[in-house]
């Protein structure tokens, strides 16, 4: 498609030349150069004769459009030559770019969280918040992590120095689920975004803290099928209409049944690449049906209601969505990074 590039090149060149017309001489030169019978435009029309037949209609259309555009703009510029004030002529160079000012923007994690919140508030979810320094009860025990249970190893935990009791930096926002249910009667439909901590060595793939959004819906007759449908809606909104999901059985103490959700890798289209570890799937969240022991802890009647919960890492989703390869970039706040989003 060489020809198409030439058309575009001519358009760019002629447009910028139009901006510099100052006198009738300039205008005549422009006409001769671009619009005359031997001008650049005419030469391109000449070339059109040689292109393969199947390309002719499209290229011909582009060329005609260019001719109309140039002729109109040339007319306007020529008519305006007389109206330019003599003082501005030459003394003020309008081609100088405007003065630089700060363009602010929200952090990519805020942008991602906002998007997730929008998707879920659209279908009736409220938004709740909770403390980052949590007690053991809300971070673990009420969520059906018994003391001395290997499930506690799933999350490396920071403990806070304290003489009065056992406090942790929350390892997930799930404690907010408990707080919301303790203080509100069902039905409950709420999103819980926030900062969480994991005692893991800092690397390109993990940081000592990250942000999570959890969702909780408790009502009569909430089912796994409903959870699947809701997550499918989310994936279509957040990724794209073609997003395909895979629900893999998994384990979280506070849900039963539990699943891990994978989306088909949009980087390689499922063929397998480095990002999806050659599986064709990208893990995006954990979810499941609220465990009856959690309902017991918050004094909900497990025979009356059922519910689903899901949780995702905002960093992980942002990494995937933007193709970022190092989680530490989010917290370095390099403006060259922040200004890309």
């Amino acid at each position, binding site marked *: 498609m060489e020809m198409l590039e030439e058309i575009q090149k001519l358009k760019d060149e002629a447009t910028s030349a139009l901006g510099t017309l100052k006198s009738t001489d300039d205008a005549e030169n422009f006409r001769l150069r671009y619009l005359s019978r031997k001008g650049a435009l005419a030469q391109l029309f000449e070339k059109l004769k040689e292109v393969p037949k199947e390309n002719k209609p499209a290229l011909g259309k582009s060329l005609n459009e260019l001719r109309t555009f140039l002729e109109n703009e040339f007319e306007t510029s020529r008519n305006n030559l007389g109206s330019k004030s003599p003082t501005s002529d030459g003394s003020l160079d309008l081609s*100088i770019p405007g*003065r630089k*000012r*700060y363009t*602010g*923007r*929200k*952090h990519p994690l805020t942008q991602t969280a906002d998007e997730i919140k929008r998707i879920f508030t659209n279908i*009736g*979810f*409220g*938004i709740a918040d909770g*403390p980052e*320094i*949590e007690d053991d009860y809300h971070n673990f025990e009420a969520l059906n992590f018994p*003391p*001395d*249970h*290997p*499930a506690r*190893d799933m999350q490396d935990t*920071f*403990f*806070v*120095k*304290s003489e009065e*009791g056992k*406090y942790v*930096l929350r390892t997930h926002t799930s404690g907010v689920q408990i707080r919301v249910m303790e203080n*509100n009667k069902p*039905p409950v*439909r*709420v*999103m819980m975004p926030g*900062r969480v901590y994991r*005692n*893991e060595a800092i690397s390109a793939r993990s940081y*000592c803290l990250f942000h999570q959004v959890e969702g909780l*819906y408790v009502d009569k*007759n909430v*089912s*796994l*099928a*409903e959870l*699947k*449908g809701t997550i499918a*809606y989310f994936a279509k909104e957040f990724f794209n209409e073609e997003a395909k999901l895979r*629900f*893999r*059985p*998994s*384990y979280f103490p506070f849900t*039963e*049944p539990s699943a891990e959700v994978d989306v088909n890798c949009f980087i390689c289209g499922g063929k397998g690449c480095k990002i999806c570890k050659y599986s064709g799937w990208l893990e995006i969240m954990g979810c499941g049906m609220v*465990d*009856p022991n959690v309902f017991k802890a918050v004094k909900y009647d497990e025979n009356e209601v*059922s519910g689903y919960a899901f949780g995702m890492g905002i960093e992980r989703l942002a990494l995937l969505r933007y193709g970022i390869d190092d989680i530490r970039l989010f917290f*370095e*706040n390099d403006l060259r990074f922040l*200004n890309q989003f």
Partner: protein
Amino acid sequence: MKISRKWLQQLVDLSGVKDDDIASRLTMLGVEVESYENFATKYDGFIVGVVLEVEKHPNADKLKVCKVDVGGEVKSIVCGAPNVAAGQKVPVGLVGAMVPHNQHDPDGKPFQLTRAKIRGVESEGMICSANELGLGDDKSGIMVFDGAANQGTPLSDYLGLNDTVFEISLTPNRADCLSHLGVARELAAAFSKKPIQKRVKITEDGPSINESVKVDVAAQDLCPRYSARLVRKVKVGPSPKWLKDGVESVGIRSINNVVDATNFVMLELGQPLHAFDLKRITGHKIIVRRPAKDETKFTTLDAKERNITPDMVMICDREKIVAIGGVMGGMNSEISEDTTEVLIESANFNQSSIRRTSKALGLSTEASYRFERGVDPNLTIRALDRVSEIIAQTSGGKLAPGIIDIAATKFLPKRVELHVDHVNRLLGTRLATGEIIRVLESIEIPCDKKSETVIMCSVPTFRGDIERDVDLIEEVGRVYGYEQIADSFQTKLNFDTRFHGNTSLDELRDLLAGAGFNEIMTNSLQPADVAGFHDTAFVALANPISEDMAAMRTTLLPGALQTVGVNLAHGLKDMKLFEIGRVYVVSEKEQVIGRFVESPKVSIVLSGAADPTSFDRKESKFDIFDLKTEIERLLTFLKLDSWDFISYDTTKEYEQSLKLFVNGMELGIGGRVGKAALQKLSVDQDVYFAELDLTSLLALRKSTKRFKTLPKFPFASIDLSFIVEGQTPAAEMMNALRNAAGEMFRDISVFDIYSGEGIPDGKKSIAFSMALGSEERTLNDGDIAGFIEKAEKTMKVKFSAELRRQKN
């Protein structure tokens, strides 16, 4: 955990099933296969060859040209290894083979062998090093095999590597899959196959075990079952190839025929076993008990002295501890070359007890890992029989008749009732009773149909994780297949309006981003001295990753300065940043969570140019007034109508500083950051920083917006200029003018400050621009003159100010 296909095939028929299908079906059953490696195909195109001749390469000193017999055919191969010699049996890759590891590539990427001319001599293959084959680290020279190798034998056959090994990542609930048996069970369900039941062949001989050994379980709460067998006349030695290959194929080091046998059975069935040298068990008596008061140290097999605590379970003889139950044996009773009588322990230990012990010792072993997740208590005897069979077979040992078996109780299947409608309600399915039964029985959970809609399930003891009906529902869901459950999205849109989140924070972010600020997010963990410098009541972590992150931040300042430093280091000098985040302190009083207070703050960070240089204007740097501008922007946005700044020269953080007060409450602090703090981060330009408390600010926010009728009459603007003492604060003068204007006051600003020529020494001229107005009429000259007269008088009295000129 590694699982071998060859091993699985002993336990379930997998003929015709592809590796890829095994991996994907296991993953979809919740037994996640992270990766797998097929060693048979990995070495396609590699064979054992015999080097017939070695000649020097005509064009290169370090290369040799070898004639290699690859089984009926002689290939000419160029080789650079220093150790190549005629007569060697070596691994040869033929043209087309994929060499697993490229020694010359930094990532070691595999590459395909092609027919190539090397310095002018054609090479029809490659003789490989262990490193190139991915079989070890040695890349100093080619691998050389012993005499048993035959030329032409496929390399995978010679190495016994005709296996596929799956790397499995298990969630903590699936202890039943910590063995080949468990994974085979899942596969039997996945591919509708029957597990292979192998008959164990043992012959007992000699006096009964009970005549040689006594066992006493004193701590039955920690050890619900202890079973043991005795093998006499054992000859300890290296394991036969099948046993060695078996344990090594899943990454366990081969030690000797006895230890390997115990490991093999653990890997096969999931029951950890321990072998004692009976000779070294004093009194031939095993006592399972808690340690005595004076027993505080014990040396484990790995030659490390361990500190033991009173709640651990110890395996002891009459005199001493011989093992830490369920975790690791001791040096003092270890199997050695002269062991002849082997006592095999096959026990079951309390999950939480083992977990606490393992945590306390900082020691996680294959055994403790399994016990803390839960081992089937009914496995002890089966495992003993299997290991006895292997030891007898590989060491010539004679199995003593009888088994010692001390159990706290009979371990029976759990009876759990399952209601079909509960299954369908929770999963959102319409499964029939028969379908549910079929699914559960496929994973060896026998079912009894109590009625059309109620099923009684007998959960076998190997599924300790299944206790309730929901646990069974999960089993039904995962085995039936989550992908078979149709999505439903008919959510009734009952919006939950009780939870609004903090929309004010979202609005502030929008405001600041719109005002040209980049939002930043910084680490909320800090060094303790930094956190403590700003507030001594900081929150400290009991187990920090490092000293750099041992405390929770008490202010957003250090993160902001670090950000400025990072950007300066990259040559970016102009910054306008904000952060909305929490700071954390310990308070005097009890709070919702302990005594911890988390306060949301907003920070403003200005450094570099307020207005960058442009073609016609000089750059102007940020100063303290830009900081005030931004703070006031926030306050105006929040509809606060009055506030005060109190300024200080120096505080511990700032050189020029301001405190913000609203309604007498301190809401924030800011200023030009002190040089000392800047130097620490090599920041060599001014940084203006402010941090405001959002809890109080947002509480003061005027939330109800009421429309006020627009003014009907235009404002009058007047400029007033006074000469006053140089020290007189502008803010106070503005207040006085405001009061003088009373009802007429609309707006005021400073538009000029001047001292020097024409102004007496020590004095300054300060000019204000004011807007005055009235609700009733347009102000006339008389109104204005009246105000000016009043203003002049007031200012004279209050500040000894002299009115310079007036203009309207």
